[in-house]
Each structure stands twice: as structure tokens, then as C-alpha cells.
């Protein structure tokens, strides 16, 4: 749709994945950008502003797409935006070193009737390969303005804005040249002549585009076409007749015939404008690297080593910062506690708010590091290779190759791991990966296992802990398969994916990515985590004057009320309270056990107290439940943020509770049957 407000020029960036679109966006808008989600979906919406010569531009970075069909959510979003929102110009970012496939989208964008400016990006790479193009001729044949750019070096950005200004001031003459094969063109113009359109035709979208897309079987275009024609029944009949005619003539679906025609047009175009074909195959160097990185035997070991390094960096180096944050937070709490007069307010600030803020900030090092690495892997091109290597194994459990990294990171912490699921393209794959992620046992759960194995299984500690981790993985695999079958039975998750040539990521792009993720976590998930911390503080401290989380506190009452529920698992109310607190953060389970059991036992010693209240069997059941039941509030908040849906979040929480209870009960009963009490 055309924009009529000229005080703020609106530009949409469209292009294939890996065309350098995001780099162009970052170069254009710098730090003046805002990242969010498109309404109702988890596809990223990036928008920024830029000023030049007193004119302000609003730049929207559309999702990376190969075509304007409705194959994926990304395509639907990009198409709907181009159709429905006021736009002054589309900047089509085209990878100059991969023209043939990139121009396929261009042929579709040109039909929209909106001003298109082609940014021929990575022109340096193309020239480095020895490719020579007649840009003037290309511009003339396509009927658009072409700006050569090297976004990674910031070259051509000013020219893009000037080209946009030019188009806005002087107007745009949509190209007329035929882009389909003659027979299809004939059918299109025949339809254009024979369909009568309503008088109040808004012309926001050219009728020609609607006809082409309807012939291609696009439901949205079809709807619009019928709304705009005076006799929808007649239009439907004519479209059907034409589709049939094309199908008979070409022996193929019209959409394929049209796609074929577009590639034919591009082929002809390139024969005209490429004055020297590349002497160096750009992908050749990349292919040599892949001979090693995707090697039959070495590929997966190299990948696993890289993943191990990622894991170490994220959680060891991150852990270093995390410790300092914890020290800082507790020092701040201690200081405030000594300054403020003792009472409810001091307790709220120190134990509720400060602890809550600390609980949020503590995730920042992990998130920042993991996205530093993920951003590097993605921008360099390795992420697509990782998916290629792992797809076979992951596909067996109904997942996509790209699910591996988020799942692996779950062993460190589920919060950044769930955020890492963004690298998956389809909504179904993303949801599946998020839903089973909490079953990857994060490091926060380890102290619980260590405490109990230390007391009850000192002989076979490692085996017992391993069995818990393995149970998590097996449950994840089983849940993944079940969810795929029951929740997304019809969804096809194809693996038709480009392996882009390796390239060096830009520092700016990487840092911006890290900043986006971290700030999003702080603003979206952080607030929820903080609020939950305060609620948990209140449950532990009220009514005022009781021992924190003691038997007479609200949570103590809640625990005792829950006692009948946990009795079938072999627990008493204190275990229930510890698990309730574990919702705040899994680390808290151990300290709560200390207060409840250690405090109440005459010896005051936690080990003796726990040995008195638990048997090896119930201790194991407690570990199983700690593994499965609701991940911490930070994970829940992240699930909410990443799925953008309360129902999926509640589903995740409900599923984990039911599964934990069922597994706990099962283990307990089997243990009793085996005489393990």
C-alpha cells in the first residue's frame, strides 16, 4: 500500500535470508532501532529510524524470505505488511554474488506496483570473483533503480536514502516489461480485460498482481480479487478456466509454470547484463572449509567440540560474572539491612526486591555470552551446517536439526536455551523445542541431586545422578514425539535450506544482537521474575513475625494443605514447601530443606534430619520430581515471552506438573513393588 504522509518516509527492507539485509538495516538505522514481535506471532519485528537532510525515514526490516508465497509464517508476514501498510519504497537487498536466486523475489516485488530500489549488496564479493555486471542495463531492463552496496563496510547507504527520496519526490513509474512467458502473459492480460472491477477500486494493490497471485493459488489474493470485482462468481469461473487452460497447455500446476517463467526471465536478464562470468567460484573456498567441517566422520565430532566450548564459555565464564553479581547483590542486601530499620519494609526490600532483582540480573552474563556465540555461529554461516549435521538424529525424534543447540544449552540454564530456540524457522519447531527444553536438567537442579545422593547413594552417586539426566532426555524425546503427533499432526517441517558461503560476521551486528536479546530479557522476562520473587517473599514472610518460610508462614500453611497430595509420593508437607519454593529458583530448594528439616531436627544437622525423614526411594522420587516439575519462574517467564502466548505457557507448566507427579508416583510404586522401602 502506498503511503500518503510525506513527512515520514516509510521504507521496507525485503530480501532473501543471508543477503545481508540485517547488516543494511543496522547500517541504516544504527542504534535507533526497536525490536519486538509481529502481532500475535514470534517472528521478529525490527524497526528503526534514520534522518537525512532534515527528512526522517522509518525503516522496517521484514523477515528474510525467498518468495512472496505463503509457504512460511515469515512470508505471510512480509506479504501482509507490503499489502496493508503504507509504504513509500521497498529496498530489495540482493546478494550480488548470488543473483539468480535472489532476483526471484525481486520479480515478485516488482509486481506489487510499489516503488522498488534494488540494493545490489556484497558487490565487492561479486567483483572479487571476477563477475562484471552492466548495472545500467540491468536497471533499464528491470525498470528499477539499482544501488551497489557493501553493507558490511557501510558503503552505499547514503545512496539508498537518496534513491528513496528521489522516488518519493519524482514519482515512480512501475516497470511494464513482461516477466512471464508469453502464453502466461496473454492469459493475465486476458483476465485483466475481462474482469470488471468495482468503481471505488482503491488500487492499493495492482489488479495484475492479484490476478497473478490468484493464478498461483494464493488464498489471500483470491479473496481480495473477488472483493474488488463486480461479479465475483464470474471472476471465479474465469480464474478456474484459466488455471485449467494453463495446466493443460503446460502439463503442470500454474504456480510451477509461473515460477518457471520467472526463472526463465531471470536467466535471459543475466545473459544480457553479465559481461564477465565469475572466474572464481565464491562458494569454492566455502566448499573447501565444508570438506572438513561437514566431513563424514569429522563433521559431528568437530561440531560437538564446538558445542562443548560454547557450553563451557557460557556457563564457566558466565559463572564467573554470576558469582560476582551474587556477591554484589548479597552485599547490597546486607548493607541495606543494616541501614534500614528492621521490619516488614526492610525485609521486603532486602529479601523480596533486592533478591528478586539479583535473581534477574544473575542470568545476564549467560544470556549475553550465549547470544554472542549464537550470533557469531549464525552470521558466519555455521548454524546452517550444524542443522545439516544434526538433522538426521533430531529428525528421528520429530525435531529439526537446529533444535540441537537450544536443547544442549538447556543443561546449563533453560532461560538462554529457550531464547536460543529463536534460530528455528517454523513456529511448530520452535514451540516443540521450547516445550521440551525444561526436561534438560539445568545446573540449578544439580545441588538437589548432590545433596540427596550424598546422603542416600554415596556408593553410586554418579550413576544415580546420570540416571536422572538420562530420564530427562528420554522424557524429552518421548514428549517431543507425542507433541509432534498430537499437537502438530499436519505440520510439515521441510528441510530445504540454503547453506550460505562462510563469511566474517560484523562486530556491530553481533553486539547489536547481544544487546537486543539481553535488553529484551530484562524488560520482558525480568519484570515477571521480579514480581514472582516478591510474591514468594510474601508467602514466606506473612503473617508478619513468623520464621521465614517456617511452618506458620503462608507457605507453611499451603504446604500443610498440600500434604495429602504429596503423601502418595512418600513426602510430608515440608518437602511440598521446598518444592513450592523451588518455583522461585531451583537453588532455593536446598536452602529451604535446610530451614525446614535442619531447623526442626534436634541435632540441627540437615544430613541427619533428611536421613530420618527420607528413605533412599523417596529421596530418588524427590530428585525425579525436581527434574520434571515446573522449571523456575524465570523459565516460565521466558517461555511466555518467547511463545508470546499464555496458553502455551500454562500448557507447559501444567504438563510438567502432571508429568512430574505421574513419574514420581510411578517410581515410588515400582520401588515399593521391588521392596525398596
Amino acid at each position, binding site marked *: 500500500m502506498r503511503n500518503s504522509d510525506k513527512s515520514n518516509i516509510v521504507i521496507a527492507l525485503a530480501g532473501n535470508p543471508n543477503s545481508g539485509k540485517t547488516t543494511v538495516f543496522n547500517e541504516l538505522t544504527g542504534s535507533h532501532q526497536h525490536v519486538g514481535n509481529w502481532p500475535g506471532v514470534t517472528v521478529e519485528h525490527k524497526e528503526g529510524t534514520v534522518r537525512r537532510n532534515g527528512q526522517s525515514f522509518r525503516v522496517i526490516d521484514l523477515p528474510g524470505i*525467498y*518468495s512472496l*508465497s505463503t*509457504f512460511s509464517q515469515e512470508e505471510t508476514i512480509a506479504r501482509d505488511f507490503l499489502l496493508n501498510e503504507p509504504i513509500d519504497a521497498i529496498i530489495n537487498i540482493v546478494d550480488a554474488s*548470488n*543473483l*539468480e*536466486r535472489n532476483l*526471484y523475489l525481486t520479480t515478485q516485488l516488482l509486481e506489487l506496483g510499489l516503488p522498488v530500489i534494488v540494493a545490489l549488496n556484497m558487490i565487492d564479493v561479486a567483483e572479487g570473483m571476477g563477475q562484471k555486471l552492466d548495472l545500467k542495463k540491468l536497471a533499464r531492463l528491470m525498470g528499477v533503480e539499482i544501488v551497489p552496496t557493501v553493507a558490511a563496510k557501510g558503503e552505499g547507504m547514503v545512496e539508498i536514502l537518496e534513491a528513496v527520496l528521489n522516488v518519493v519526490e519524482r514519482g515512480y513509474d512501475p516497470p511494464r516489461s513482461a516477466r512471464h512467458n508469453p502464453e502466461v502473459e496473454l492469459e493475465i492480460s486476458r483476465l485483466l480485460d475481462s474482469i470488471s472491477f468495482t468503481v471505488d477500486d482503491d488500487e492499493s494493490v495492482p489488479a495484475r498482481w492479484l490476478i497473478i497471485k490468484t493464478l498461483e493459488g494464493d488464498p489471500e489474493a483470491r479473496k481480495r480479487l473477488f472483493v474488488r470485482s463486480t461479479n465475483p462468481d464470474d471472476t471465479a469461473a474465469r480464474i478456474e478456466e484459466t488455471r485449467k487452460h494453463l*495446466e*493443460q497447455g*503446460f*502439463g*503442470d*500446476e500454474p*504456480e*510451477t509454470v509461473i*515460477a*518457471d517463467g520467472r*526463472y526463465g526471465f531471470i536467466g535471459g536478464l543475466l545473459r544480457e547484463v553479465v559481461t564477465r562470468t565469475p572466474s572464481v567460484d565464491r*562458494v569454492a573456498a*566455502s*566448499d573447501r572449509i*565444508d570438506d572438513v567441517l*561437514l566431513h*563424514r*566422520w569429522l*563433521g*559431528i565430532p568437530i561440531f560437538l567440540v564446538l558445542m562443548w566450548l560454547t557450553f563451557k564459555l557460557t556457563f564457566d565464564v558466565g559463572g564467573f560474572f554470576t558469582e560476582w553479581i551474587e556477591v554484589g547483590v548479597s552485599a547490597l542486601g546486607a548493607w541495606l539491612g543494616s541501614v534500614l530499620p528492621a521490619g516488614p519494609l526492610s525485609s521486603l526490600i532486602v529479601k523480596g526486591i533486592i533478591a528478586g532483582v539479583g535473581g534477574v540480573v544473575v542470568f545476564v552474563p549467560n544470556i549475553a555470552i550465549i547470544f554472542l556465540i549464537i550470533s557469531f555461529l549464525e552470521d558466519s554461516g555455521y548454524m*546452517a551446517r550444524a542443522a*545439516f*549435521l544434526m*538433522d*538426521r*538424529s533430531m*529428525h528421528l525424534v520429530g525435531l529439526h536439526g537446529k533444535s540441537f543447540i537450544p536443547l544442549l544449552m538447556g543443561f546449563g540454564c533453560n532461560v538462554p536455551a529457550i531464547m536460543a530456540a529463536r534460530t528455528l524457522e517454523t513456529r511448530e519447531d520452535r514451540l516443540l523445542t521450547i516445550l521440551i527444553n525444561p526436561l534438560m536438567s539445568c545446573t540449578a537442579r544439580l545441588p538437589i541431586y548432590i545433596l540427596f545422593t550424598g546422603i542416600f547413594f554415596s556408593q553410586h552417586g554418579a550413576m544415580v545422578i546420570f540416571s536422572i539426566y538420562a530420564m530427562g532426555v528420554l522424557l524429552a524425546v518421548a514428549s517431543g514425539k507425542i507433541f509432534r503427533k498430537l499437537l502438530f499432526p499436519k505440520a*510439515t517441517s*521441510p*528441510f*530445504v*535450506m*540454503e*547453506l*550460505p*558461503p562462510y563469511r566474517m560476521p560484523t562486530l556491530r551486528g553481533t553486539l547489536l544482537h547481544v544487546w537486543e536479546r539481553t535488553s529484551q530479557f530484562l524488560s520482558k522476562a525480568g519484570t515477571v521474575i521480579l514480581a514472582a520473587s516478591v510474591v514468594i517473599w510474601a508467602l514466606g514472610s506473612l503473617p508478619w513475625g513468623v520464621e521465614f518460610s517456617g511452618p506458620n508462614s503462608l507457605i507453611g500453611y499451603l504446604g500443610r494443605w498440600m500434604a495429602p497430595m504429596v503423601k502418595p509420593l512418600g513426602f510430608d508437607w515440608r518437602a511440598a514447601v521446598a518444592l513450592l519454593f523451588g518455583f522461585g529458583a531451583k537453588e532455593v530448594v536446598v536452602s529451604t530443606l535446610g530451614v525446614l528439616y535442619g531447623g526442626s531436627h534436634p541435632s540441627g544437622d540437615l544430613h541427619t534430619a533428611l536421613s530420618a525423614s527420607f528413605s533412599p526411594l523417596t529421596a530418588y522420587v524427590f530428585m525425579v520430581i525436581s527434574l520434571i516439575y515446573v522449571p523456575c519462574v524465570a523459565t516460565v517467564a521466558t517461555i511466555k515471552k518467547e511463545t508470546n502466548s499464555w496458553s502455551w505457557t500454562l500448557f507447559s507448566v501444567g504438563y510438567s506438573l502432571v508429568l512430574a507427579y505421574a513419574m514420581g508416583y510411578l517410581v515410588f510404586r515400582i520401588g515399593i513393588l521391588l521392596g525398596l522401602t
Partner: protein
Amino acid sequence: MRRGHGAQEKGVALSHSMEDYLEAIYNVKIRNQVARVKDIAREMNVRMPSVTGALRSLADKGFVQYQPYETVELTQAGLNHARGIAHRHTAIREFLTGVLGLPQEEAEIEACGLEHAIRPETLDRLLKLVDFIRVHGEEDNAFRLSDFQSYLRNGSDPDGHVSPDVCYLPATIRSTRLSELCPGMKGRIAFVSGRGPIRRRLVEMGMTSDTQFEVLRTAPFGDPIEIKIRGYNLSLRKSEADHVEVEVID
């Protein structure tokens, strides 16, 4: 008498002449992407009404989709069956000409008769034999039956000429599914079979008829595969590559 593999699986027996029609449709489609009644008639050297009759019968059995005056589409079952017959035909013809030294035309006729009777396992060995003899013959090595038999048993060739590798496509087979090709092979896309979103995506990514490509590699467990097409690298699962009929080129 044993019939074609696909037909046994489906429990539908096809007469020899029906199998010939399927094979002809496949050959026409590989060449032209589209099969019309007149093309099939020319391919088989029969009159158009005979083709129409055969198509109706094949449509009833679920091997083709056919409406009068329209192009002929092979169903997935029909395509698999047709490909199988075509492979048997070429294998036998190559054996008859290359090994037994029969003249081309005679071998063609013989192959048409024999192709209906051979089982997939036998076909597989025949193809390997043709390859084995060709490779060893070129090197002017003596062909020893015992070497070939040990190759069949152990999958390893004493001279290492016929690759015992995980990926093996007999040199005789020139048109097949993309998923059957081995790394290093080049080909052209004949057509993408089936209907629906996956097919459309494949076509949009540049897999249109007559486009050339090269298979670069397979992932560690043999799936997915990576090809170079239209100047870029594309990976796809074997289940997706099953939809792409290709012709091997040297």
C-alpha cells in the same frame, strides 16, 4: 511368474503391456517434463486410441491421473513402478549389448520382453555385474568370476574399482530420483513430482526443469544431502529429494 516389485507391494498385478505404457510415460516425462497422449503414442509406436484405453486402465489401478484431453500425471505409486521398469530395461539392455555383444536394436527388443520378469535383487546384481565388467574390462584386467562373487558377498572389490561405499549408483542408470545420486554426480532436473507446498518450495528455490546441479555431499548419516544449484548450496532431506526426478550427466 514374478511381476514388478511395486505391483507386488500394492497387490496390483500389471500386464506386460501396461508396464510398457508406464515405462513410456516415465521416459517421455524425463525428456519433456510433460507427457501427452500423442507423445506416448509416438514413444510406443502405437495409435492414440490404444494409449487412451491403456491410460484409463492405469488410472483405475491408481498408477496415473488422467482426464481426456489433458496431460498424463504419474501418481507416486505409478512413478515408483515406472522408474523400476525403466531401470530394469536399461540394465538388461546394457548387459545384452555390453556383455553379450548383441546389436543395439536386438537388445532393445529383448530388454522389452525380459524387463517384466526380473526381480529387484537380480536386477541389482545384474547392474553390478555390468559395472564390474566394464571397469575391469577398461583396465584390461582379466575379469574373474570369483572376484565378482566375493564383491557381491563382502561388498568389497579386490581392485577397489567398483566402490563398496555406502553410496552406489550403477553407471547404467541415467535417470532416477535425486535421493539416489551420490556425492560428486552431476545432473539435470527432469521434473519435481507430487503436488503441494514442498514441491512449490523446491521449484521456488530454483529446481525447475532442465536446471543443472551437482551433488556435493551427504550429511554424516547419509541424510540430508547438499547440492549446488544455480550458483548456491542447497540442502534437503532425502525424503524431499525423493520428489525430484533427475537425469545424470557426465
